[in-house]
Structure formats: structure tokens, C-alpha cells
């Protein structure tokens, strides 16, 4: 079918069209605009599922923008890995939007909600494009769009902290893209290519002739994506930005946006750089150690926080480091673990932010110490929070355990048992800061002091869907891990 061949670009275009229409419709019909956004996201999900089926059946294929063959045209790739990531992106965006549609009424001024819808869809479109593009410059363009929109969904809530955090994010993110572009220029200098596939061929020779260029580019890429994905020690922007944003934005940023950059680094490591480069340079080693420090740092700092959303934000720094650890370990199983953790953490952290959002929605409480006894007045929200915490800790039956299992197995396979200890230690630390919240929420003898509004049904159903996701990733993980295992085998 002709339409089926156009799927990669349709998935990017559908939310883009929605992004243009949503604010226009919003002026007249607020409800209809929300449904339009839902519809365009739903369409994207359906298309992503079709794409997955197609790729599973016919194998990976390349889509050439406007029928220009590379190296002139821009190329999109649909292979199992990219489609997996794509599916994660669109499905979770759809799910978060369910939450957003209700929560935004409360957090934002009425007039800006239409614009928020547009930004949201633009963000989804740019993330979808980033996952599929096979061209470095196209990647750069969509990274900038992604940066602006994700910054905009922070600052759309115009209070002081959001503005300041948004600006900090924008500047550091600009530094990240600057470094990225410089790296691209260095690679282009020695190869004359921007397409991933051609680059990989050319680089095999270029590494020998121009080693410095390639090494510098690699280092710049680590800095660029490390900044954007909040890899320790380049994470400084994250806690403020994710904590102050409106809750749906926090869920989106912590759940998906930082993962996209980690995924891009992974793609560049394995799709752009030839294997010989990875073997000869300690690139993975650097990423690995940064990740190990990040895991510990994020967990320790999360323990010190008094604000719930800030705690969740610091916890993201620790968790994103798991994904980098998968990349850094440079081993098949660990890579599967890291990639699986993208999905798991996206679901879990988004759900935790939603739960935090629901708490703020209903009570206005943000401080952890004020939440004693809250579980008795809003049980469903706190049960969702508990399930999310369990997945963060890695309790059996939740997705967190599966990704940690793969990571640990990969680390053991290459004899790096030190990193298994890091993983376990971080689980312990996670337990230490997540559990008291849950315990005090349900078991504390103090009665919850604040006035409580009822949480709307839509928010509740979003949380229930999240819990189902978490359990599914924990118990029926096999199809997904099988897909990932097959997908990463080509890299080794």
C-alpha cells in the first residue's frame, strides 16, 4: 500500500497539523480543540503500531523525504529500535495528554491553554522526528524545535520560578546544540556526509586519517547529549525546570524529552561511529563512569529534597543515568536493559509526576512533610504513587526490576560487578526516599490537614492506566525485550 510507505513522515506530520489547528479551534470551541489533540495523538499511535507491524513483517526500511535519495535528501529510518522508541513517545504522549486536559484547566490561564496544545503537539512531532531521522542536520533542527517547545511548556505557566528555570534550560540547551553542531561540522569536514549510513562508511577510513576531528566530535556529542539529557555533571538545569513546570509538562519532560536525547546519543554511538572507534576509544567508559556517578548523585540529592516534585526531578537524574549506563556498558544485554529502562522510566516517572500533580490539584500541597495521612483521603492517587515507587525501587512485578535485571546481567557478563553494586545501592537509596512518603501517606496517625477537592475521573483513569502499564512492563515484558534483543544484536 502506498500510504503505508509514507507512515514515517505521516507520524511527524499528523501532530504538526494538529498543532496548527488546535489554537485556532480553541478560540471558539475549547472542548473540541482538546479532542482534536487527542485525535491527532491517537492517529499517531495507530500509525506507529502499524509501522511496528510492518517493520516486524517486512524488515526495516528507509523513507526518503520527497524521493531525494541520500546523501542529498533527508532520510527517515523505520527499524525495530526506532519504531520502539517512536511508539513509546507517541503512546506516552497520548496518555499524558489525558491527564493534561484536566490538570491544565487548573494550572494555566484559560487563554494560553490553546497555545499549550500547539506546543505539546509540536513537541511530540519533533520527538517523533528525532527518533526516526537518519540525518545529522535534520536531527539538529528538530533538537532545536524540541528544545524551544519543551522550554515553552515550562514557561507557559508564567510564574517567577518557571521563567527563571526555563531560561536556564534554554541557555544550557543552546550550549548543548552548539556543541552538537560543532561536532557535526567536524565530522562533515572529514567525510562530507551527514547521513548516518554514509557517515559510518566514511568514518572507518577517516578515523585513521583524521583521528583528532573524529575524537573531538565524539567528545562534543557526549557533552551535547549529556547536557540535554541531564547526565551528571551536566544536569544543573533539570531540577528547577522539571520541578517548577506544570505537572503535565514535568511528566512529559522527565518522562520523554530527556530520554529522546539519551536515545539519540545511543543511535549516534552505534549508527554513526564505526565499531572500531568505540573499541579503540574509552568513550563508553567515560559515559559509564559519569552514569555511575549520576546514579548515586541523583539518588543522594533526591533524599535531601523537601519538595515532592523536586525530589522526583532529582530522581530522574539518577534514573536517566541507568539508560546511559546501558549505553556505557557496551554490552548486548545491558543495552537491552538501558533501552527497556527508557520505556519503564518514561511510564513510571510520568505516572509519579501525574500523581504529584493530582495531589497539588486536589490539595495544593507540595511539601513532602505536609503529606502525612494523605493516602486516606485520596487513596487512588497514593496507590498509583506507591506502584510507581515500587517500580523505581525495582520490586518484582514492576518494570523497574526487568531493566535492572538486564543491566546487571550485562555488567556481570563483562565482569564489571562493581556496577551491579551501584545499581543495587541506588535501588536501596530509592527505597529510602520513596518509602517514607508512602508510609506516612497511609499509616501516619496525623490526619491530613488541608481541604481536599475531588480528583476528576479523567485524572484517575490516567493514573489507573499508568498502573496497568507498570505492571505489564513488569510481568509481560517478554515481547518487548525480545524485540529489543533482536534489534541490538546487529550492533555486536
Amino acid at each position: 500500500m502506498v500510504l503505508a510507505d509514507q507512515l514515517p513522515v505521516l507520524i511527524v506530520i499528523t501532530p504538526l497539523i494538529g498543532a496548527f489547528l488546535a489554537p485556532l479551534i480553541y478560540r471558539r470551541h475549547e472542548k473540541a480543540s482538546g479532542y482534536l489533540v487527542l485525535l491527532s495523538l491517537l492517529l499517531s499511535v495507530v500509525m506507529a503500531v502499524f509501522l511496528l507491524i510492518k517493520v516486524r513483517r517486512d524488515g526495516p526500511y528507509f523513507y526518503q523525504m520527497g524521493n531525494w535519495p541520500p546523501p542529498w535528501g533527508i532520510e527517515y529510518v523505520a527499524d525495530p529500535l526506532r519504531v520502539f522508541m517512536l511508539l513509546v513517545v507517541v503512546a506516552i504522549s497520548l496518555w499524558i495528554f489525558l491527564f493534561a486536559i484536566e490538570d491544565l484547566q487548573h494550572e494555566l490561564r484559560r487563554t494560553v491553554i490553546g497555545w499549550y496544545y500547539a506546543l505539546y503537539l509540536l513537541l511530540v512531532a519533533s520527538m517523533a522526528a528525532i527518533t526516526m531521522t537518519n540525518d545529522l542536520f535534520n536531527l539538529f533542527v528538530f533538537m532545536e524545535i524540541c528544545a524551544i517547545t519543551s522550554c515553552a511548556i515550562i514557561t507557559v505557566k508564567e510564574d517567577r520560578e518557571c521563567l527563571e528555570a526555563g531560561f536556564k534550560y534554554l541557555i544550557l540547551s543552546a550550549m548543548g546544540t552548539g556543541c552538537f553542531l560543532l561536532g557535526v561540522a567536524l565530522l562533515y569536514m572529514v567525510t562530507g556526509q551527514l547521513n548516518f549510513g554514509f557517515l559510518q562508511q566514511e568514518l572507518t577510513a577517516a578515523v585513521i586519517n583524521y583521528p583528532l576531528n573524529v575524537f573531538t566530535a565524539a567528545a562534543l556529542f557526549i557533552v551535547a547529549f549529556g547536557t540535554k539529557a541531564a547526565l551528571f555533571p551536566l544536569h544543573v538545569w533539570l531540577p528547577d525546570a522539571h520541578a517548577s513546570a506544570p505537572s503535565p509538562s514535568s511528566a512529559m519532560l522527565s518522562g520523554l524529552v530527556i530520554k529522546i536525547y539519551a536515545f539519540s546519543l545511543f543511535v549516534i554511538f552505534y549508527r554513526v561511529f564505526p565499531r572500531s572507534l568505540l573499541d579503540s576509544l574509552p568513550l563508553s567508559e567515560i559515559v559509564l563512569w559519569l552514569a555511575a556517578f549520576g546514579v548515586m548523585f541523583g539518588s543522594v540529592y533526591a533524599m535531601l529534597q523537601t519538595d515532592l516534585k523536586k525530589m522526583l526531578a532529582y530522581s530522574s537524574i539518577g534514573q536517566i543515568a541507568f539508560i546511559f549506563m546501558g549505553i556505557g556498558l557496551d554490552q548486548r544485554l545491558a543495552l537491552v536493559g538501558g533501552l527497556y529502562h527508557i520505556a519503564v522510566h518514561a511510564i513510571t516517572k510520568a505516572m509519579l509526576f501525574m500523581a504529584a500533580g493530582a495531589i497539588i490539584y486536589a490539595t495544593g500541597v507540595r511539601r513532602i512533610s505536609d503529606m502525612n495521612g494523605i493516602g486516606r483521603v485520596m487513596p487512588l492517587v497514593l496507590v498509583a504513587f506507591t506502584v510507581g515507587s515500587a517500580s523505581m525501587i525495582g520490586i518484582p512485578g514492576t518494570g523497574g526490576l526487568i531493566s535492572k535485571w538486564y543491566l546487571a546481567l550485562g555488567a556481570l557478563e563483562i565482569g564489571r560487578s562493581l556496577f551491579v553494586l551501584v545499581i543495587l545501592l541506588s535501588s536501596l537509596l530509592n527505597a529510602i526516599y520513596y518509602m517514607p512518603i508512602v508510609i506516612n501517606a497511609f499509616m501516619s496517625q496525623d490526619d491530613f490537614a488541608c481541604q481536599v477537592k475531588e480528583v476528576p475521573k479523567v485524572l484517575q483513569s490516567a493514573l489507573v492506566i499508568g498502573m496497568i502499564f507498570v505492571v505489564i512492563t513488569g510481568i509481560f515484558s517478554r515481547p518487548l525485550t525480545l524485540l529489543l534483543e533482536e534489534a541490538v544484536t546487529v550492533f555486536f
Partner: protein
Amino acid sequence: MAEKTVVAIQIIIVLAPIIMTPVIMYSCRISDQLRNGLSVATAAVTFILSLTLYPFIKDGGIVQLSLFEILPNLEISIRLDLLSFSLAALSSFVWLLATLYSLHYMAREHAGGRYYPVLIFTLGSCQGIFFAGDLFSLFVFFELMSIIAYILVIHEQTEEALKAGYKYLVMTIIGGLALFFGIIIIFELGGTVSLGVGPIIQERSTLGLIAFICFLIGFGMKAGMFPLHVWLPDAHPVAPSPASALLSGIMLKTGAYGLVRVVFFVYSYQLLQTSNWNDILAALAVITILLGSAVALTQTDIKRRLAYSSISQLGYVLLGLSILNNNAITGAIFHIFSHAFMKSALFLAAGAIIWKTGKRNIADFKGLGRQMPVTMGCFALAALAMIGIPPLNGFLSKWTLALGALDAEAPGFVLVLLISSLLNALYYLPIIIPAFFELPDSLQADHHGDEHDLPPVKIEEATPLMLSAIVILALCTIFFGLTPNNIAFSLSRLTAVYLLGGGGF
């Protein structure tokens, strides 16, 4: 019995309580009666179903079946052999009694709507541990049980309970992580964690040792092994008494059970012997026994004393396990039975006393034997069994353990057993003797020195239902102790032969 039926029964045993949990939770809204009825019915069905497995076991049947794959080579699988059967039957039996006992005990407590579902859920996950066919499923159910049991521990929701519960939870997580590490290493070394393929680790290696220590930490923590016992004396006493009985009587055993599985099914026990890794276990067991008994002496709270006593008793099981010969293993497994009966009886009796009189301090127990003769009688019986007075079951297990120690030419262990029994006597007798032969402080002032003219004391027993649970458990201590020709002992002996014979893979 066909294998399919057996598997179906096993799955029902595990799933029925778990599925009933939300039903029970919901039934609270309709009526408390319905909730209680459902809880008892679930526990009873579980017990009866586990008994129906006996004919299959008697014919030497073994089931090992994987249900579905979670990760490559990592399935959720079920297994039924002598060991699983023994523990499953034992635990569902005690659970049934404790549930019956709870009906009246908990009537006075708050939040029954939370207590019963959790109680039944832990029953399901506990059975899941015993029926797990591989380390991973075992780990899953183990964690599930441990974490859910937290709600039982903090049921009272006092400051003290919350603190104890937090300690419990942190230790559980540490233990869980250690287990996770151990399982991953085994998976890495052997490529499988199934219990049905024979000893996975046959050769000595550093990683193997690390994994062994991890298992010791993970399961030993649950079993209250020194130095990981710290949570136990806080957590067990603060729970409601029937829950303490289960925590001490059954849930501790899951740790011991896990260690048995590790020693015989994950490692070949010959390897443990040749590389002397079992000495680690032996040393820790000896310390656990002595330390538990010694500290129990200093406790004045009845439930705390019982909790410390549990630590020392579990030490016997671990000691038996570390000796690794026929008699010792028989003793260890039989002691799992004995201790379940004795300690549950003790906790339930203590619960009845607290429930009726509110007394927790041992010094207040004077004259209690005349006030609550049946309860105190059962308490005394179980305590005597604990000390190891023949013909009670505690004697039989200690005797067999001692025989095992002598077979292994380690008379030192016999000495440890003797010292510990002496200590047991030292801390149990001061409860029993004043209870029967002294007057309460309030009466002593009037009647001092007048032993023959005791004033009539009003008999104030707990309800018959509660009493019956206590009495049944106490009678078990006699029934399974009179002669070695009882079902529990022969099961233990068969299991020991089965384990040492290579597990019949």
C-alpha cells in the same frame, strides 16, 4: 493423581487467596460477618487443597513445570516435591488457625478491613514461595510476601510500630537486593535459575561464593540470622498477636526454606562441604542460637521475649542445615514443623493474655495460671516443648539434631544445643512457674504466707474459638512429639533422604 490435576491444584492454592483479597476487601462494605466468613473459607480451602496433594507426594511424585517466560531462560514455574508439600501444608494449617483466632481477637481492633485482605494475600504469596519452581519466582513471591506483611507489622499504627515497620521494610529491601544480586550471579554462571535441573553450581568460584553470601544475607535476613536479626525483635512484637504468630511461626520459615533450596538445589551440597562454605552458615547459626537465647533472658515484654526466642530457634534450623547429614537435615526440617506449632501456640496464648488482661510485662503474670488455666496450660506446654522436655516435639527435633551433630563428629554443636536448651529453660520457666504457683501482687498483700488457703480466682478465659486455636496447636506439640512415628517426622526424614539423594531431579 494426574500431574495436570496437581498443577491445577497448586495454582489454585496460590491464586485463590490472591484473588480473594479484593473480594474480601470489598465485602467489608457489606458486612463484617461476610468478610470474616470469606477469610476463613479461603484459608480453609487452601489448607484442604494442600492436603489433597498428599497422595501424589506419597507416591514420590515430583512436579516441575514452567508456566510462562518473563525473560529468556527465566520462567515463572512451579514445583511440587516433598519439601514444598510439607511447608505448604504446615503453613496453611497454621494460617487457618490464626485466621480463626483473629476473628475474635481482631473484633476489638481497628481497621479489620485492611487486616483480613492482607492476611489472606500473604497466605497466597507464602504458598507461592513454597510452590515456586525457580529462584526467580521464589524471589518474586518472597518479596511480595515480605512487603505486604509490612502492613501487618504496622497494623497498630503507633509511633513504635511505624518505627519498627520502617526498619523491617528497609531490611527487607536490603535482603531483596542481595537476593537479586545472588540470583543474577547464578543466572550468569549457570544460565538458568530453575530448581528442577539439579545443582546449578558445581564448581568453586569467587562469584559463586559471593552469590552464596548474598543468599545468606537475603534469606538469612528473613530468618532472623545474626547479624541481620535486628528488625525481628522490633517488628514481631508490635504486630497484632495472630499476625505475630504467623510472622514468627511461618514467615520466618520462608527464609529457612529458601536456604534449603539454595543449599541443595542451587549449589551441590558436596561443593559446600568440600569448600567449607557451610562453615559460614554454621558459625552464624551458633552465634544466632546463643545470642537469641541470651538476649531473650533480658526481655521483660512477653512478646519481645518470644521474638528473641524465635531468633534462637531458627538458629537450630540453620545449624541443622549447615551440618549436611541425614539426621541433621531431618532435625532441621522437623524443627521447622515443631517451631511453627510451638511458637504459634505461644504467640496466640500471649495474645489471648494481652487481649483479656492487657498484661504484657512478664512480672505481671503471677497467678495468671489460675485465672486463665487453659491458655496458661497451653502456654506452659509449648514452652516446655521449646525447652526440649520429652515427649514433646521440641525434644524430638533437638535430639535428632544432636544425633546429626554427633554423626558429623562435631560434639561442639551438641554442647551449643544443650546450653541453648538451658537458656530456654531459664527464660521460659520464670514465666510459667509464677503464673501457676504465685499469687498476683494485688492479692499477695492480704494473703501472704498462707499458701494453703488460696482465695478463689474468677476464671476469665478468652473466647472458645480463640482457645480452640491455641489448644489445637498445643496438642500438636504433644502429638508430633510422642513418638518418631508421626507424619511430620516421617515427612522430614523422607525429605532429608530426598534432599541428600540429589533431589530426584
